[in-house]
């Protein structure tokens, strides 16, 4: 029987309530085990030597002195990670990033690693490794890297996506284009046009838990990996491919994860830990320092974006274009492309065109960061939208409402939208008391919209019903912020039992089929889909067992509120059988009762949000204070509203940090200058106000409960909303993120002088 994922309106019992999460007790008592909280008998300590140069050829590595140091059990270089990628460019980039092969491509690039009996010996050993570098010219700025005179990172990169393919190598890895209509004609119809260029600096996800793993590779080809990750199946795949292991012989167990936000979707040190373990013949624990996390994990892109939008006097946008240049680090990624796809997704446009350029620079390999690439594009577009509204003398919200995408709109990236939430979030924002609250001196209000696709993907779950009627739910998507609670609620809802009777766990890679990772806001969407499917399969078994018990056809058994019910008057005397009663007799009716589900979760509903914020600017210092912040976002259906609010608030806070103070600062030597929480300034508690949330529920037609992903969209509008607020407060248009006090003060002074 096929699973029908279509939305059906219903009354919920568990879904929509706010129970305590199942993993909460362990987390408030300090018992929960994260990446660095696990140990194996006989384990060694791993440590990685990193390039101090932004770009350098490695002429020779001499590890002999380190190998001779007492207590050192293994030293590895790229020679210990032979290239098994067989022409797969994506895997080769991961391999090259895990351990430099021939060239160090950024400050922090791994060049060698050791495993020793303790941390002190490992650190000592790193100092004994001698590397002969030929320092090469480097480039860290995205615009500089595109210039024909820029140092080229790879002689093998010729810009893809342009005709004809260039005959000279460059740092522009790929050009992509999206849109429809006739741009020139569209601008021809415009009464007003605003055109501006913007820059955003590189930021890091800033998860508090550094990458950590314990690896054990046995001589018989089996291996175990304990690791903090957003996707243990993906890590298994990557590690197995890079080390030449059979996928099913590498068991990966995901620890509790101390934040990821996209940064733990990618292997960094895990293959190195396995290589060290294989060479040493002992388990190896490898934990990054905070300095290493900043220098050598995967921050987001720095960008340079041009936007041009034209509108008629009546407020209709006639044409919109954007050119987006995104830094990728040393290897290609689809970051500008995602920016190009999302830029104008909030709007109903006849003529739209976006062009993205993927640019290679001597900085760490870019990884996903919560709605990757969308916040920067939204910053540029929503800033111009605000400016255009001013020119038109229209209210900024009304202007957006007038041009908002709706059901049936052909999106700027291609597909035609189903029911979507951009209009409703704008209407809700317009009617929100925040919009009408008075403002004081040096204070400004800004608002902006944001979009994210949301992903689905491969998903697999198991439901096992215990002999006492309790239910274990095994999922394969990492719980990054409460999904074990929401998925337990979904299982309880479907089975018709109390939430407390369900215990959800994240199963290891040997206990469950493959799952894509927790990214693209897919965790609750796709795994709840699979959980509903598994629960329905379990219900089918429960009905069969009841039918068998009663000796009636299974077609005559219904499942209602956690009970098998014999349908029809002829069974009038049969009392219903509870899940618990059926489970107790399972041993006599055919064995354990379970429900499984393996599916590709198609139909993730797109997500939209509108944010409002008030900012005060100190005109003498450029200091900013966030006075008030409101998030309005469509959740489809909020399974656990408290955790949905948490996602809205968390994304907004990250966006606020990005907008105001967070940035990677490189010196002219190409080295990162602020690789720590002291000078990479994420918001602290006293920086923020309470963050108000409003959850809208416009059901996703492709999910039985209407669920959409909620995790990412909340980081898309803040950069723009804050830029608009600062611009309104200070009277100058801010075009460079972060809007740090020196940038704001310079803009104010520039405006006064000019």
């Amino acid at each position, binding site marked *: 029987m096929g699973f029908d994922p279509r939305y059906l309106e219903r009354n919920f019992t568990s879904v929509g309530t706010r129970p305590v999460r199942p993993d909460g007790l362990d987390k408030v008592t300090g018992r929960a085990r994260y990446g660095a909280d696990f140990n194996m008998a006989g384990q060694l300590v791993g440590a990685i030597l990193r390039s101090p140069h932004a770009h350098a050829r490695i002429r020779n590595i001499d590890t002999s002195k380190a190998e001779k140091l007492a207590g050192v059990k293994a030293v590895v270089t790229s020679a210990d990670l032979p290239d098994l990628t067989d022409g797969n460019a994506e895997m080769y980039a991961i391999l090259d990033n895990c351990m430099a092969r021939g060239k160090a491509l950024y400050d922090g690039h791994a060049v060698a690693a050791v495993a020793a009996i303790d941390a002190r010996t490992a650190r000592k050993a790193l100092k004994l490794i001698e590397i002969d570098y030929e320092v090469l010219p480097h480039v860290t700025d995205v615009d500089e890297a595109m210039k024909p005179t820029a140092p080229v990172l790879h002689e093998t990169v010729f810009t893809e996506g342009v005709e004809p393919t260039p005959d000279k190598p460059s740092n522009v890895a790929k050009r992509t284009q999206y849109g429809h209509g006739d741009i020139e004609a569209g601008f021809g119809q415009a009464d007003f046009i605003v055109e501006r260029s913007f820059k955003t600096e590189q930021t890091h996800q800033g998860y508090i838990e550094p990458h950590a793993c314990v690896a054990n590779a046995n001589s018989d080809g089996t291996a175990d990996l304990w690791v903090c990750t957003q996707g243990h199946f993906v890590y298994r795949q990557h590690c197995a491919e890079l080390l030449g292991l059979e996928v099913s012989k590498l068991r990966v167990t995901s620890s509790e994860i101390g934040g990821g936000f996209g940064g733990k979707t990618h292997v960094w040190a895990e293959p190195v830990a396995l290589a060290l373990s294989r060479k040493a013949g002992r388990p190896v624990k490898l934990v990054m*320092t905070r300095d290493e996390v900043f220098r050598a994990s995967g921050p987001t892109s720095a960008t340079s974006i041009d936007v041009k939008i034209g509108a008629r006097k009546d407020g209709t946008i006639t044409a919109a274009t954007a050119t987006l240049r995104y830094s990728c680090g040393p290897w290609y990624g689809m970051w500008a492309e995602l920016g190009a796809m999302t830029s104008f997704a909030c709007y109903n446009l006849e003529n739209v065109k976006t062009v993205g350029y993927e640019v290679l620079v001597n900085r760490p390999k870019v990884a996903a960061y919560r709605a990757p690439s969308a916040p920067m594009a939204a910053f540029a577009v929503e800033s111009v939208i605000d400016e255009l509204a001013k020119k038109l003398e229209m209210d900024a919200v009304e202007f957006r409402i007038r041009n908002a995408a709706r059901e049936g709109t052909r999106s700027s990236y291609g597909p035609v939208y189903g029911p979507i939430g951009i209009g409703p979030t704008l209407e809700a924002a317009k009617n929100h008391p925040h919009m009408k609250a008075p403002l004081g001196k040096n204070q400004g209000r800004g608002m902006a919209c944001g979009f994210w696709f949301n992903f689905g993907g491969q998903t697999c779950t198991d439901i096992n019903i215990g002999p006492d009627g309790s239910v274990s739910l095994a999922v394969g998507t990492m719980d990054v912020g409460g999904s074990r609670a929401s998925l337990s609620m979904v299982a309880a809802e479907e089975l018709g039992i109390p939430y407390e009777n369900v215990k959800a766990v994240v199963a290891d890679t040997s206990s469950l089929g493959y799952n894509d990772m927790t990214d693209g806001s897919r965790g609750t969407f796709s795994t709840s889909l699979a959980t509903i499917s598994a629960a329905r399969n379990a219900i089918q078994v429960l009905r069969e067992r009841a039918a068998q018990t009663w000796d009636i056809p299974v077609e005559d058994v219904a499942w209602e509120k956690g009970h098998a019910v014999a349908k029809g008057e002829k069974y009038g005397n049969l009392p219903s059988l509870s899940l618990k009663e059926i489970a107790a007799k399972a041993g006599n009716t055919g064995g354990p009762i379970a429900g499984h589900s393996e599916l590709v979760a198609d139909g993730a509903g797109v997500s939209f949000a509108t944010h409002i914020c008030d900012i005060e600017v100190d005109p003498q210092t*450029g200091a900013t204070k966030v006075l008030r912040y409101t998030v309005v976002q469509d959740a489809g259906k909020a399974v656990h509203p408290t955790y949905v609010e948490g996602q809205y608030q968390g994304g907004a806070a990250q966006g606020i940090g990005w907008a105001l*103070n967070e940035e990677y600062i490189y010196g002219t030597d190409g080295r990162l*200058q602020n690789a720590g929480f002291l*000078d990479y300034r994420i918001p602290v508690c006293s*920086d923020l106000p309470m963050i108000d949330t409003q959850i809208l529920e416009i059901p996703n037609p492709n999910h039985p409960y209407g669920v959409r992903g909620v995790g990412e969209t909340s980081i898309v509008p803040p950069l723009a909303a804050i830029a608009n607020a600062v611009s309104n407060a200070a009277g100058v248009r801010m075009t460079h993120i972060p809007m740090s006090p020196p940038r704001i*003060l310079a803009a104010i002074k520039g405006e006064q002088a000019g």
Partner: protein
Amino acid sequence: MEEAVGLLTGSAGTAAILAGGSDLLVRMKGGFTEPDLIVDIKSIDGIGEIRQTAEGFSIGAAVPCAMLGENEALKRAWPGVVEAARLIGSKQVQGRCTIVGNLCNASPAADSVPALVAAGARASIVGPAGRRTIAVEAVPTAPGKTSLAKGEIIDAILLDERPARSADAYLRFIPRTEMDIAVVSAGVSLTLDTAGTITAARVALGAVAPTVLLVEEAARILVGSKADEATLQKLEEACSAASRPIDDKRGTVAFRKQVAGVMARRAATIAYTRAGDR
């Protein structure tokens, strides 16, 4: 104390003094220092105390900054010094860090130092050659460097008793509301006469030169005035002009020069109001 001085004097390799450890352990963690000897001075008699003396206050070298905020007499006499000490790092860091450590770390951006310099504080030093007392501004000589000789330990910071109608204030600029190193800072200490005219002033700026700057020109501008708008404007300009900062990851030259003046003006205004209330 003699034992500590002896250990430090006799050590052949790298020796480090441990009081709060909030700088030392960070440097060790980063691999910037690997001391052969760590001398924990916290168990030395009296070094963890704030004492009120005939001359004023003696703040022991191992007194965590949080304790300054818990001493009502010190808070009343030197509110600027106390607020500076309580801006260093977080509550957690303030539970450990000391103003002597802040001084000896010799960062131009150290929070407590401009306040101490403005306050005219002195450092009491014990060493192999005995005891000496110097002005705090004579301790740091360059970023990361001090005038202390081998084996010397600052055992206390000395602050004078306050005359009537005197107060100090400290302000710093940071991008966030907490947890940052000062981008620029200002400490101001004032004494007024009964008519509200400033009779004595000291103005110090942080993070605008290799060491904390005592801006004598700024003090001259304040003395004889009632901190009126024209005086404050001149003060602001003098402080901006005296600043010779650098561009770095925390701020630009232009920003630091401008904001140094703003911080000095605002700190002077606070100090003036406080002094007038006494």
